[in-house]
C-alpha cells in the first residue's frame, strides 16, 4: 500500500507531467483560457490516460515482449490510443450526449497528446506491475489536472494585469509556467 502512495504522489507532484517533464504543453497553453475549459480538458485527458495504460500494458507484456518486438511499442501504442479515443467518442455520443458535447471537442485533441504516450511508455520503462501502472497513470492524470487548473487561475489574473508589450500574449504564459515549474521543483525532496 505504501508503495502505491509513493508512486501516486511522485507522479502527481515530483514528476509532474507538465511542470517537470514538460509534456503536453499544447493543451496547457491552448486550453487554459478559463477554469471550466481547463477542467474539462483535464478530466477528459485523465480518463483517456488511465484507459490507455490499462490497454497498452497487457498489449506490451503479453504480445510484444514474448515475440521480441519491443521496438514496436511506439507505433502500436499510438495506434491503440488513437482508436481507443475514437471508441470512447462513439460511445459517449450515443450514451451520454451531454457529456459528449462538453468533452467531445477535447477528445479528438487528446488522440495525439504526448503526455498520454509518455505515461504509457514510462510504465514500461520503469517496469511497473499492472496495478502500479494504473496508480502511476492516475497520479500523472491528477498532476495534469492540477497543472491545467493552476494555469487557468493564473491566466484569470494575467488578463487583468498590466503586462509589458513585448511579453504580451503567449510569452508571459511561458514565464508564468517557468515560475510554477520552479515551485514544483521544490517537491523533489518529498519522497526519498
Amino acid at each position, binding site marked *: 500500500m505504501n508503495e502505491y502512495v509513493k508512486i501516486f504522489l511522485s507522479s502527481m507532484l515530483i514528476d509532474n507531467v507538465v511542470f517537470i517533464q514538460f509534456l503536453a504543453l499544447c493543451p496547457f497553453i491552448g486550453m487554459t483560457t478559463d477554469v471550466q475549459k481547463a477542467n474539462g480538458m483535464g478530466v477528459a485527458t485523465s480518463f483517456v490516460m488511465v484507459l490507455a495504460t490499462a490497454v497498452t500494458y497487457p498489449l506490451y507484456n503479453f504480445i510484444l515482449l514474448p*515475440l*521480441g518486438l519491443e521496438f*514496436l511499442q511506439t507505433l*502500436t501504442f499510438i*495506434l491503440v490510443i488513437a482508436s481507443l479515443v475514437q471508441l470512447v467518442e*462513439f460511445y459517449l455520443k450515443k450514451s451520454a450526449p451531454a457529456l459528449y458535447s462538453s468533452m467531445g471537442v477535447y477528445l479528438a485533441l487528446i488522440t495525439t497528446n504526448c503526455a498520454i504516450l509518455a505515461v504509457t511508455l514510462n510504465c514500461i520503462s520503469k517496469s511497473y506491475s499492472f496495478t502500479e501502472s494504473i496508480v502511476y497513470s492516475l497520479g500523472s492524470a491528477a498532476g495534469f489536472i492540477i497543472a491545467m487548473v493552476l494555469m487557468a487561475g493564473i491566466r484569470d489574473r494575467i488578463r*487583468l494585469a498590466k503586462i509589458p508589450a513585448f511579453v504580451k500574449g503567449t510569452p508571459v504564459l511561458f514565464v508564468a509556467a517557468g515560475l510554477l515549474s520552479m515551485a514544483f521543483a521544490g517537491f523533489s525532496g518529498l519522497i526519498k
Partner: protein
Amino acid sequence: MTVILYTLAVSASLALILGFLLGFFKKIFFVETDPTVAKIRESLPGANCGGCGYPGCDGFAQAVAAGEAPATGCTAGGRETAEKVCAVMGVAGNIVETVAVLACQGSKDHAVPKGFYSGVQTCRAAKLSTNSIKMCAWACQGLGDCVAVCRFDALHMGDDGLPHVDEEKCTGCGMCITECPQNLLVHFNKTDKGAFARCNNRNPNKPQILKGCKVGCIKCGKCEKACQVDAIHLVNGIPVVDYEKCNSCGDCVAACPTNVLYLR
C-alpha cells in the same frame, strides 16, 4: 527474418482488429441526426459570435431545426444567410440588417476626464469603480470592451479615444451592444436615413453638461422646433428620430448649438 515477419503480422493484425472494431462500434453507436441541422449549419457564417443568443452556430442550427429559434435569428449573417436558412426551413422571412453605431462624442478633445485612472483597463471595471472616468457619467469610457468582444474586426479604437465602427465589416450581431456598460452602442437599421444624436447624457443641468463635455446634448429642444416634418422629439432628454418621417433635410443638424446631431 522471423522478426520482420512477426512485425508485419503483429502490426497488420492489430490494425485490422482495430479497424474492424471501430467500424463495428460506429454501427452500434450510430446516432441519427436531423439532416436539416447540418444544412442550416452550412449556411451559417460559423463565427460562433453568440449574437443570436444560442451557444455558437451549432446551437442556433439545432434550435432553428427544432422550431425554437426564428429562421432569421442570425443577425451576423445578414440577408444572405437569412434567405438561405429560410429556404432550408421552407418559411418566408423578413430580415432587417443593422449596424452598431456609437451614441457618444466624448473623445479626448471633447470630454473632460475626472482624474487619472490607473485601475483595471476595462470599461466595465472603470464603470464599477468610478461610475465614469470622465466628468460625464454617461460618456464612453474608451477602454475598448467593445473592440475586444468584436468577432468581425469591425471595431477599432481611434486616436481620439473612441471606438470606430467599420460599417462595411459590422454585421449587427450585437455583441458590442450588450458588452458596453454605458449602453452607448445601438442598433441602426441599414435602410434608415436621417439625423442621429451622438449623445446619451440624461442630465437636465446644462452648466454641468457643458463642464464635462463640449459636445453634449443640453436639452434645448431647438431640433424639435426646427423640424418641419415632426420627426424629432426629446425622449428622456435625448433627441430621438422617427426615420419613417425624417427626410434628411438637415434643419435640426444646423439648429443644434452643440453639434450633437449628424446626418447618416
